Each structure stands twice: as structure tokens, then as C-alpha cells.
């Protein structure tokens, strides 16, 4: 069933490969990627160090020192790994859609926290309150985590509030809820950021002292709901 999606496998440097299903933000393809990721997690390929799922690709880091000449039969280690991966993919029949959780995220969209709201309103011609309404009225899929520990790439947001990246990244406070293009995300840590900040959540997106480490996982469904400043500070504790 996985093979209903066409894919290619290409090198990512000399010690990793990427299984690519195309340059797409597509929920069904993303589900296939996550399914494949879970499969590799529970049954790693020989020599695999880790697998990294993204929007529409899955990369595999492997340890070249694990492969002895006698099994290679003249192939490079990478050719061997690609061949083994293809064989494995051909054997995959059904997609086990991992259980998806629904996570509700409280957001304070106050001007003090949504520092770019006015800019977004000006650029899109959409009224500030409408931006907030459009952001919190739909649910979003977490496509992948990356960029920072616990940073979730979520989509897809309403086209009317699509914004390009900032030309220059600006300092961002942890918990900042942001948008760019078709995506929305939450900065888990202080960082320079190129996305537009429209609010802030008191929740911790990344906590190294917890077992789960991150609040969100790829495959989760996320909704946002507005809270007041008072509620924000209460929840922050």
C-alpha cells in the first residue's frame, strides 16, 4: 500500500540516505512517512543509527563501519543500504496509521504576546480579530518536529493569512505561536525566528526533564483556543 506513492531514494552525504515521496505538504503522504518511521523504529535496518521523518521524506543515518566487504559484493556500502531499503519497502503491505492524539493549546493573542499581529493584518488586509479567529477555528496536523527540540511544523493554515518568512529573523520568546506560509508552529525555546508571532502559549513545548521530552509529536492533531492574560499567567505556573 505504501507503494501507491512513488518515491526515490537518494544520498544525504556519504553516511545517510533519504527516502523521498516528493516535495509536498500532503497529509496522506505524511501518514505514510510516519508509519514507515514507526516501522524502522521498532525494526531498524541493519546498521541503522536513526531515522528522521519530515513532511514527505524519511532519512536514515547508518554506521558504515558495520558493513563488512564480504556482504557488499562490489557495491559501495551506500548502494547496499539503498538496495536493502528498497527490498524492505517493497515488502511493506499495509499502513498502520498510528493512533493520533488531539492536543488543545491555550493561546493568549494579546498585543503584548502577538507582537506581529498588526504587521500581519497590514500585510494581508485581514482584520486582527479575524486573523485570530481564522487561526483558532481549524485543527492542524503536526507534520514533523525539527529546527529546535520540540518545534512542531503544523498545517495547513487559512490561505488568507499566509505570510512569507521575515527577511531577517528576530528574537523570539519561548511559547511564541507563529505562522508562515501554510504553516503554524510554536517556538519551544528562545531563538532567532523568521516566522510571524501572533500569540503565546503558557505550555512548555519542550522539557528535558520529562519522559516524553516534547509536548507534541508528529501525527498529532492540534487545536488552539484563546485565553486571557490572567489565565495565561495562571497556567504559566
Amino acid at each position, binding site marked *: 500500500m505504501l507503494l501507491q506513492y512513488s518515491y526515490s531514494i537518494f544520498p544525504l552525504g*556519504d553516511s545517510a540516505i533519504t527516502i523521498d515521496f516528493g516535495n509536498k505538504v500532503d497529509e496522506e503522504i505524511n501518514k505514510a512517512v510516519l508509519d514507515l518511521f514507526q516501522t524502522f523504529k521498532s525494526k531498524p535496518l541493519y546498521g541503522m543509527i536513526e531515522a528522521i521523518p519530515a513532511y*514527505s521524506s524519511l532519512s536514515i543515518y547508518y554506521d*558504515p563501519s558495520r558493513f563488512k566487504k564480504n556482504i557488499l559484493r562490489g557495491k559501495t556500502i551506500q*548502494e547496499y543500504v539503498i538496495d536493502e531499503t528498497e527490498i524492505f519497502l517493497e515488502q511493506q503491505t499495509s499502513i498502520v496509521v498510528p493512533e493520533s492524539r488531539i492536543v488543545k493549546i491555550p493561546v493568549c493573542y494579546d498585543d503584548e504576546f502577538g507582537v506581529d499581529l498588526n504587521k500581519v493584518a497590514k500585510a494581508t488586509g485581514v482584520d486582527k480579530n479575524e486573523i485570530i479567529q481564522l487561526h483558532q477555528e481549524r485543527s492542524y496536523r503536526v507534520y514533523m518536529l525539527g*529546527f529546535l527540540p520540540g518545534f512542531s511544523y503544523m498545517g495547513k493554515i487559512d490561505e488568507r493569512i499566509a505570510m512569507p518568512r521575515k527577511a531577517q529573523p528576530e528574537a523570539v520568546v519561548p511559547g511564541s505561536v507563529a505562522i508562515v506560509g501554510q504553516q503554524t508552529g510554536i517556538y519551544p525555546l528562545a531563538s532567532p525566528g523568521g516566522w510571524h508571532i501572533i500569540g503565546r502559549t503558557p505550555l512548555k513545548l519542550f522539557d528535558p526533564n520529562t519522559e516524553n521530552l516534547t509536548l507534541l509529536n508528529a501525527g498529532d492533531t492540534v487545536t488552539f483556543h484563546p485565553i486571557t492574560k490572567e489565565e495565561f499567567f495562571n497556567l504559566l505556573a
Partner: protein
Amino acid sequence: MSIRIIKAGVLDSLQDMGRYGWQYLGINPTGAMDKFSSKVANMLVGNDPDEATMEIHFPASIFLFEQTAMIALEGADFFASVNGEPIPSSHPCIVNKNTLLQLQQPSNGARTYLSVKGGFATEEWLGSYSTNLKAGVGGYNGRSLRKNDQVFFRKKNDFSSLLGEKDFMILPWHTDLKWEEDEEKEIFVLPGHEWERLTKRSKDNFLSTSFMITRQSDRMGYRLNNIPLEMISEEEMVSSAVSFGTIQLLPDGRLIILMADHQTAGGYPRVAHIITAHHFKAAQLKAGDEIYFRMTDQRTAEELLMRQQQHLLQLQNACSFKLEEFFNQ
């Protein structure tokens, strides 16, 4: 049992071979920039090569040994001295209690690695002792070292009987296996997935010109000051995994080489990848240095890596033998 920071360096942190297995959560691997030198530093004192070492930049910290220790420095030569007397890098060395280790500006290279026999006792997080500076976890309290920090050793080694009144003792063997010995200035690369999208002129440019490492360079990546490169087609890419040594093309046409603190994924075109066997060469470049790229193939990349690993193994065996001999005398 410890080393104390008397004066803080600009960026000294504990690093090992990196934290793998968690990139799916956006947790970037970090680890030593020059993993080769870190391994050699460990081997010289008989440690597991993957043990955490102190990655040191210039200006470096001033260190006080609160206990005798066997140490080694490997990487760029920082003209180290113990209580004012020079000690060579690439040699194991025993230092006495209450001695000061000072380092100067290297004439060549960017960073050096300090190992201690038995290893440093530091914070492990998700199977690695590397400091994740961004997340603030791992290594020494998740940050670079500051004045008065006390970094403990995992083992108490008492070498006072060997030293007597001496401040230090240099052990009579060393390794020639170092990054500086590599004559080839060029850094080998393999084409990235988006290499073919570069215009012919840009491809030629990439392979025939040298580029300078700008000051906007750090553990996360090196920004190069190349003439802007161009793509045949501009296509926005969705984010996908990248790795140490991946060379990306930024919107302004400039290149960035991803290094140890690289993010797990990115959406910029991947023009090329530095081969693993040459990561250590790239790691010893600093702002102002020139970098030259040469395209190679996968087979060569694998052979060079294997050869490097074999040399390291030979070195490890030689060091174990020498150390055993030394302690049995």
C-alpha cells in the same frame, strides 16, 4: 578529583560523539566539531575514544588542576603551558595538583580537545554527554564553562608518586596522526540532491574558486562569502533532514556549511555534502580561512573513511600498549 576554571574561555564545552536517536523530536545531535581529534586525545590517555572531552576555542579558559591528572591535548596547537612551562600537544602528560594550564592563540586551526584519563564526570542526557547549548542540557549544566566552574573527573588517579615535586611529566610517546599532516588543502564533497539545479556557471564556480569563512560562523555552521550562486529553477522546498557537512544555498545565493550544532532539518537546497572523512578538516577552519572544494565519488568517500578508522584503531592499540608498559615499569 576536578579541574577548576580560573578564567573563562569564549566557548569551552564538554562534547562527545553526539546524541543520536532523537532527531525525530528536533533534538539536534551536537557533539565535538572535530571528532577525530577528540578521539585521538582520548586514546592518548587510554580512554574509550568516544569519551567526552573539553572542546576549547581561542581565547581559552585558564584551568587549575585540583588533583593530579593524566591529560592530552589534540587538535589545533594552542601552545599550552603548565605553570608557565610549555607542554606539547599530541602527547599524554601527567600534571600535578595545583598547577595551571594556559593556552594561547593557535597559528593554525580553530579548536583543541582536552582529555583526562578516566573521563570527566558530567551530565548525561539521552545517552550522550555532549552539551546541547541551545536546549541547555547535557555536558556541564548544559552550557559553556564559566569562571569558578568545577568540572569533576570520573576517576581519582593519584600520580603524585610519579611526579614528586615536578609540575608535570611528558610521557615519551606521541601521535603523528593529526589533521595538520594531511597535505591536501581541498575538502572533498559529494553532490547534494539539489546540485543539478545549479546553473553550469555556478557549479564551475563552486568547484574552481576558494571561499572565505566569514565571521558569521559558529558551531552551528560556517557562512561563506562566495559570489552568489544561482539555481536554474527556484522551487520552494519542504523541510527535510540535513546532516553535519551539508552545504546549503541560502536565498541570497551564499553558502552555509552545517556543522556540529546544525538543526535536524532544513528547507534550503542541498548543494553538496562534505565527506565524513574530511569533517575534521572543515572543523579546524576558522573565520578568515579559505576553503576549497573538490568533487569526489561515494566509493572514494567510503575508502577514505575506512582508512581513517583503521588508522585510529592502530593508534588506539599502540597507545594501550605504551600505557601498559609505562605503568608496569
